[in-house]
């Protein structure tokens, strides 16, 4: 599956050369998706803005470590994800990240835009999203926000593809259950 960013022509090579306008375009492109992802994980506006800023600074300083320009989006989200984990560790909530599922998950059955939410369900959707354990929430957000592939989500979160599949499956199952249960 191709991610949203893979259909775009991003000025990553120009940014590597130090072109400020290219960096501006890249940051403008990813600032809102990154913020959404971070905020929905940490649930703190100021902390989310700080992590976005740190992610941009790290990206500008370590662009040399990016091997493939086409993977800029997942690379950037990987930096943000690590920042979120550092924050969780600081808050001594690491145990929540260790949640693993032992069941064999089914395949990735739906695309993010196939799940449609009615206006009256929006608040419930957001509420349920916040109730999901952070590992499930993380993969679900990466899937929804940037339509990253399983491989990309695996690279960003640092877990195996099987674990990503499992988390995504149970997260979607919980969401669907909520939406179906509503009268």
């Amino acid at each position, binding site marked *: 599956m191709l991610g949203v960013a893979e259909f775009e022509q991003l000025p990553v090579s120009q940014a590597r050369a130090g072109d400020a306008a290219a960096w501006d375009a890249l*940051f403008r492109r990813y600032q809102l998706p990154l913020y959404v992802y971070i905020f929905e994980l940490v649930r703190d506006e100021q902390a989310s803005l700080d992590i976005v800023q740190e992610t941009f600074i790290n990206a500008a300083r370590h662009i040399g470590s990016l091997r493939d320009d086409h993977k800029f989006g997942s690379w950037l989200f990987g930096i943000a994800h690590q920042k979120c984990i550092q924050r969780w560790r600081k808050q001594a909530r690491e145990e929540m990240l260790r949640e693993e599922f032992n069941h064999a998950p089914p395949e990735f059955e739906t695309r993010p835009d196939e799940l449609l939410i009615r206006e009256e369900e929006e608040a419930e959707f957001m509420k349920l999203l916040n109730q999901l354990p952070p590992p499930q929430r993380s993969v679900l957000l990466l899937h929804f926000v940037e339509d990253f592939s399983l491989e990309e989500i695996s690279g960003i979160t640092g877990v195996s593809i099987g674990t990503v599949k499992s988390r995504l499956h149970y997260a979607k199952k919980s969401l669907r259950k909520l939406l179906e249960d509503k009268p």
Partner: protein
Amino acid sequence: MKTPRELLFEQHRAAEFKLDAIRRDVLRADKGQTSRDSWSLRDFLWSLRWHLAGMSAIWLVIIFLQMGPSHGPGMMATVPPVKRVSPQVVLASLRENRRQIAEMIGSPTPDADKQRTFLPKPRSERQENTMMV
């Protein structure tokens, strides 16, 4: 009906103003960092000081070895010093050479004439030409 992406973006659209400010700050800071990096040549050279010192020492050894066999002090010692000859000696030598050449070709030299003039003669053949000064 909205996709989850549309819904999430809509929920956080209000943060874009703050995100724009963060983006501008990061770009400004990065620009400053880049300009500082360009002035860190001195730091770079300082980090290479031991390498540069080592290379300099190697070059000095090479130059010393190149000079040794051909232009070293040992070779210089074998060259005899140039003798200084006085002008009187040179003139005497030249005069002697001229005389020898003249003897070989048989032509009379002024010295020979003079020598002949002053050969002692018998009293009877001696001319009375005493000059008064």
